């Protein structure tokens, strides 16, 4: 993984997977948003292969960006898939805070303590 590989041009990916939609049904999803599948809930019969794979990945907690990396799809596209699965009750947003809000002082202090103890 080298920095000089991080920029290249190629045609736009197909958004067939999301039925042509470029935007999720909710706008609270960020790359670091934590997701977990709802326990014991089988994938909907209409779920695509990617959505099934997504639910399988989320048997434990992962961030949206991690799910996207494992699926090999852009974060913006996976956000659409995730939104649909949250809407149908198959996936839960674990990190229950305002996505726009800055971390509170309390959270920052926890982060600082944690970093100092690494």
């Amino acid at each position, binding site marked *: *993984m080298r920095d000089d590989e*991080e920029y290249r041009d190629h045609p736009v990916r197909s958004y067939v997977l999301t039925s042509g939609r470029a935007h999720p049904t909710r706008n609270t999803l960020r*790359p670091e948003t934590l997701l977990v599948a709802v326990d014991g809930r089988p994938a909907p019969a209409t779920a695509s292969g990617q959505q099934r794979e997504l639910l399988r990945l989320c048997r434990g907690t992962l961030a949206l960006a991690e799910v996207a990396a*494992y699926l*090999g799809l852009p974060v913006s596209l996976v956000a659409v898939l995730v939104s649909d699965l949250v809407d149908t009750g198959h996936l839960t947003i674990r990190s229950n805070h305002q996505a726009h809000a800055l971390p509170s002082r309390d959270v920052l202090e*926890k*982060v600082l303590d*944690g*970093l100092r103890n690494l």
Partner: protein
Amino acid sequence: MDSVTSEQPVRSSQHLAPTVARSVKVLVVGAFGVGKTTLIGSVSEIEPLRTEEVITTASVGVDPVAGHGEKTTTTVAMDFGRVTVSPEVALYLFGTPGQRRFWDLWAGLADGAVGAVVMIDTRHLEDSFEVLDQLELRTTMPFAVVVNEFPDAPQYPVERLRAALDLLPSTPIVKCDARDRTSAVRVLVALVEHALTFPVFQKVLA
């Protein structure tokens, strides 16, 4: 579209602990080749992962007279890592190129971030001007400047760098070996300490 997932099963150790219910992020920005992924890899508890985002950018290097405001679509890779800093909190580190033409990508990323680590290479100081401009003009987030000390790079006193980069007296400048975990963690500590002094972090952004 190829699916790589079947060959890359997620080991349970790659999931976060079930107690983790909060995530925060830090952006690692800088020019290409400055060591963003190296720094992320030094701190991350997982192998750094990569996602690609398709963005529309203004064409680069097109004659402005001949150009008709043409845009090109570009794939930009974002490398990232993660470290669990407490039983409840995971810190994500997102590496992203900081130049103006990638603004669309990291505008979304910047939302809600603790702050940014701006990596600079003293051999190419001018490469960081645009990144710093973008941060200062378009965000209110705190940032720390990190000098990734390449062996053949000229060494400058911190105050000369501060003057050359036109940084505020309060902006931390940290020298670092991005390959070294302790050194990389120290960078993050400096950023979070700085963030805690930031007035914007004492109240919710309007």
